[in-house]
């Protein structure tokens, strides 16, 4: 295997700060290396019961009857619930849970099936018992009579005229217009600019290919878990593992028909999410069981539950056609995107349509997107949702054209790269972006300059774009008399954001990162804060911390003015020191002034609630070298370099961590990960042995280059870095495999068997 890093990690710094850009030890670090940090499953309360969920063994079946009597009779069982315990709704009632608009009927039916089980693993009933073992035994005693129905296994099958319908009330939506006939196609959209025909006429080369992505999972190590206590005073308390405590509050409020004021969500430490812990699953079920029993109820998913009962990233069928002139100008691009929504509408096909050609400045584009329901778990977000599937297609076609034109693949991308002012196919023109800078950093990297030698070896490159988002965040900061501050925020810390948020406050106040004590609190204790997702937390909650710190700075200046008996505008604050010219120079540093607050008017609290707009998108690129065993088809990653525009890396170590983590998830996605479905629409590989995520032995060191093209929309120029890094990986590895073998892999995963098959077919 390939080992050791080839190049030191690089940070192409654009602006220096005192705290921002340094690498302090994260504030929650000690708790997490000693085992003291409390995650969802670690929560325990007096008299707590354990819940177990019975799931559908069928991909598509009508629920004829449910008999819970045997389960209820078992000693140690306290309650059983089914879909009938949730309020009934008609389709078309759209609600905003804070995670976007969804149909309440579908939202509820995904928690507990009502008339139909729509996927293998669909929750059908649940039990609360004195121990998990008893709860599991009881769940197995629930008798469900099913009428098994023909299932829809893929988007293309679901779009067929004679396909079985998942929902009789679902009609195709086209930008506000609905078709009359029920269909499995929930949405069709089209983006277009310029004149596609004209564009292809101008082209000297045109390449069209079809690509298949299979279903994959985020693979967070901590299974979903929730404990609910529906108190006698009517208030519902939920301790859970979530990327967004306020989103859980919002969703449970709608699902259970309970005002948000009656719900308190306590976000425990979270064991990974990658988009998969935005939706609620067992939270409302635990709540129903708690209401029936008057006791706290904890439900922890098994790994199989996680695979079959939570939202994976969708499979898709994609067609991409791109045309270019001999001189290397791309003249036209077209994409057809059919994405699996899973059992209920809402795949990320919209984002796929906006990002598929987002890295390129192309005059003539048409993109058609279809959101199709199939008998699989409702798809959920996964790191740049929708974009990696589209990139697997587009970046391979780009590679093929560059080869046809005999232009270096990075030069070809540079020649057509999106820039400030470039209009995306969905309309908006880019603000300042770092596409060109990322490509140049790739071109200048020693990895790209080094030769690739030896038989069966090849090199690939690829790039990807992700929007990132703003959304609301709140922050409160209290000044302590020892000159430290306590920072209170509501963003679940999934990868070091306590540090990256605290550092932005420290920068404003001229104190050390260690002098800020950040705490993530429950939904009763902080203003509304959107989820930890969309690469938004360091950007948006960091911005809230920046504003709250400035609120403190303003009040501290007033206090200094009061002490010195001067006007507030005569007081300056620089590098942590308050100064005033009043004959002689008066000065106090932050700590000194903090010590005087009690005697000069009392405590100072800073606060801010923000809803920032200009998130500033991020581009990422990969350079990958592989070796393919010609006898087994096994791909070894010899060398991997990831480049990403971070705008400004607040804590470079954790930015590198995001880039390395996204890259290795991409490697798993490219080479081995898939929901292997049997002929009954059931996932056959529901363990971490058979769902092959990369181990430490499967990957080399991941070399990183952080590019800093400041985002004009953020005080420190931050661009979110959580997502873009995974987008280029699958096509880059495919391009490297092609370089090594001449095989153009059009289906994921590119596992050894698939590569040998492709090799045999090529010889035929």
């Amino acid at each position, binding site marked *: 295997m390939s080992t050791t890093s080839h190049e030191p990690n690089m940070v192409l710094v654009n602006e220096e700060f005192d705290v921002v850009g340094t690498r302090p030890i994260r504030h929650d670090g000690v708790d997490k290396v000693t085992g003291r940090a409390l995650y969802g499953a670690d929560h325990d309360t007096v008299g707590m019961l354990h819940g177990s969920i019975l799931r559908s063994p069928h991909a598509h079946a009508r629920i004829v009857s449910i008999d819970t009597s045997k389960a209820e009779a078992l000693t140690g069982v306290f309650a059983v619930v089914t879909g009938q315990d949730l309020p009934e709704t008609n389709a078309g009632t759209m609600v905003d849970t804070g995670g976007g608009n969804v149909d309440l009927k579908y939202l509820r039916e995904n928690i507990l099936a009502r008339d139909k089980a729509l996927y293998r693993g669909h929750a059908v009933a649940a039990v609360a018992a004195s121990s998990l073992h008893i709860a599991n035994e009881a769940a197995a005693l629930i008798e469900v009579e099913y009428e098994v129905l023909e299932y829809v296994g893929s988007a293309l099958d679901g779009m067929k005229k004679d396909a079985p319908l998942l929902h009789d009330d679902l009609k195709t939506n086209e930008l506000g217009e609905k078709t009359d006939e029920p269909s499995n196609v929930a949405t069709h959209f089209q983006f277009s600019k310029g004149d596609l025909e004209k564009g292809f006429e101008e082209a000297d080369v045109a390449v069209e290919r079809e690509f298949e992505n299979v279903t994959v999972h985020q693979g967070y190590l901590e299974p979903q878990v929730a404990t609910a206590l529906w108190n006698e005073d009517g208030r519902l308390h939920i301790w859970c593992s979530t990327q967004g405590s306020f989103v859980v509050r919002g969703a449970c409020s709608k699902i259970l028909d309970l005002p948000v004021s009656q719900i308190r969500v306590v976000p425990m430490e979270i064991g990974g999410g990658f988009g998969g812990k935005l939706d609620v699953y067992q939270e409302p079920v635990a709540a129903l069981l708690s209401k029936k029993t008057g006791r706290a109820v904890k439900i922890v998913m098994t790994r199989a539950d996680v695979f079959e009962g939570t939202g994976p990233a969708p499979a898709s069928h994609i067609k991409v056609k791109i045309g270019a002139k001999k001189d290397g100008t791309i003249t036209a691009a077209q994409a057809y995107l059919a994405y699996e929504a899973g059992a209920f509408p809402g795949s990320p096909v919209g984002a796929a349509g906006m990002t598929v050609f987002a890295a390129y400045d192309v005059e003539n584009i048409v993109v058609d997107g279809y959101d199709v329901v199939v008998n699989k778990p409702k798809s959920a977000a996964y790191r740049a949702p929708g974009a990696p599937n589209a990139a697997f297609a587009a970046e391979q076609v780009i590679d093929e054209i560059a080869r046809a034109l005999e232009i270096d693949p990075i030069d070809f991308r540079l020649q057509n790269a999106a820039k400030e002012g470039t209009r995306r196919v969905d309309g908006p023109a880019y603000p300042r972006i770092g596409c060109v800078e990322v490509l140049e950093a790739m071109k200048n990297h020693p990895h790209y300059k080094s030769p690739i030698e030896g038989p069966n070896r090849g090199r690939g490159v690829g790039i990807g774009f992700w929007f990132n988002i703003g959304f609301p965040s709140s922050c409160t900061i209290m000044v302590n008399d020892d000159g430290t501050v306590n920072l209170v925020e509501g963003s679940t810390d999934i990868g070091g954001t306590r540090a990256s948020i605290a550092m932005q406050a420290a920068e404003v106040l001229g104190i050390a990162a260690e002098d800020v004590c950040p705490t993530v609190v429950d939904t009763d204790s902080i203003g509304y804060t959107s989820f930890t997702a969309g690469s938004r937390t360091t950007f948006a909650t960091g911005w809230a911390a920046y504003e709250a710190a400035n609120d403190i700075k303003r009040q501290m200046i007033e206090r200094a003015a009061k002490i010195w008996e001067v006007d507030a505008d005569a007081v300056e604050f620089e590098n942590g020191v308050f100064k005033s010219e009043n004959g002689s120079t008066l000065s106090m540093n932050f700590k000194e002034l903090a010590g005087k607050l009690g005697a000069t008017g009392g405590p100072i609290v800073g606060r801010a609630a923000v809803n920032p707009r200009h998130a500033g998108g991020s581009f990422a690129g990969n350079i990958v070298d592989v070796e393919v065993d010609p006898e087994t088809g*096994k791909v070894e990653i010899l060398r991997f370099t990831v480049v990403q525009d971070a705008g400004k890396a607040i804590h470079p170590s954790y930015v590198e961590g995001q880039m390395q983590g996204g890259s290795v998830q991409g490697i798993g996605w490219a*080479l081995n990960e898939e929901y292997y479905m049997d002929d009954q629409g059931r996932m056959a590989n529901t363990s971490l*042995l*058979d769902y092959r995520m990369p181990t430490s*032995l*499967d990957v080399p060191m991941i070399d990183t280059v952080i590019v800093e093209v400041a985002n004009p929309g953020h005080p420190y120029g931050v661009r979110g870095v959580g997502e873009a890094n995974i987008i280029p990986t699958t096509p880059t590895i495919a391009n490297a495999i092609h370089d090594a073998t001449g095989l153009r892999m059009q289906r994921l995963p590119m596992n*050894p068997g698939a590569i040998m098959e492709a090799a045999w077919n090529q010889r035929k």
Partner: protein
Amino acid sequence: MAQHGDRVRMLAGGTDLLVQLRSGALDNVNVVLDIKTIPELNEVAYDPGDGLTLGAAVPCYKIYNNREVAQAYPGLIDAASIIGGTQIQGRASLGGNLCNAAPSGDSIPAMIALGGVANVAGPHGERTVPVEEFCTGPGRNVLQQGEMLVSIHFPAPEARSGARYIRFIPRNEMDIAVAGAGVSVVLENGTITSARVSLASVAPTPLFVREAGAALVGKPATEESVKIASEIAREAATPITDMRGTTEYRKHLCEVLTRRALLTAIERAKEN
């Protein structure tokens, strides 16, 4: 043990048993006997003359951490050091691997190649069963009610002998063999005097391909000879298509793995 009949299972490392119990695959089982405490099942007795007697419950790491055994039976170490990962190897035993009788059990072809013989004890006394006859189907073995596997005996390695087990997996560790090949050869001035070939994951049980070994006897230890034997191995394999690979792909791997394993075994034999 007798009194519980087929409702009892032996617990050694438990790395398969506990998973099967939780999955509900063994709903009839309601008694688990921890046999790790029985001395005979933990013995590792090696004698250059008599060979190796390996207690059925000896965990993998105790096998590959044993210098003498590692020296004498590198082909066994090949398997013991790739079963599961570090933590699994702290518990999993070759005896357990054999009794579990999975077609993919990595150590079984290695043991067959080395001519291992299972020592079985039961209410009607003791008996021995060659490893290649131990497994009777997926998850099924020759043990009768009340019988248990005590140990496995391997003959002392002959001069100029070499063995090798390799498997193919998509990951580099923590994986189930798509196919595997365990082989052994004995050389006499460049000629193969005896050879054994066995395959994993390509039949209802680990497969002993007697004819592949036979084809090598009397042949020079060359790539050409090896090629012939590995073609026979490919033809002998009867794999199914499942999530781990297609029939065609697995048969192809049998040829590749047998060839690669034999070439290494020959190198090892020359060094002996």
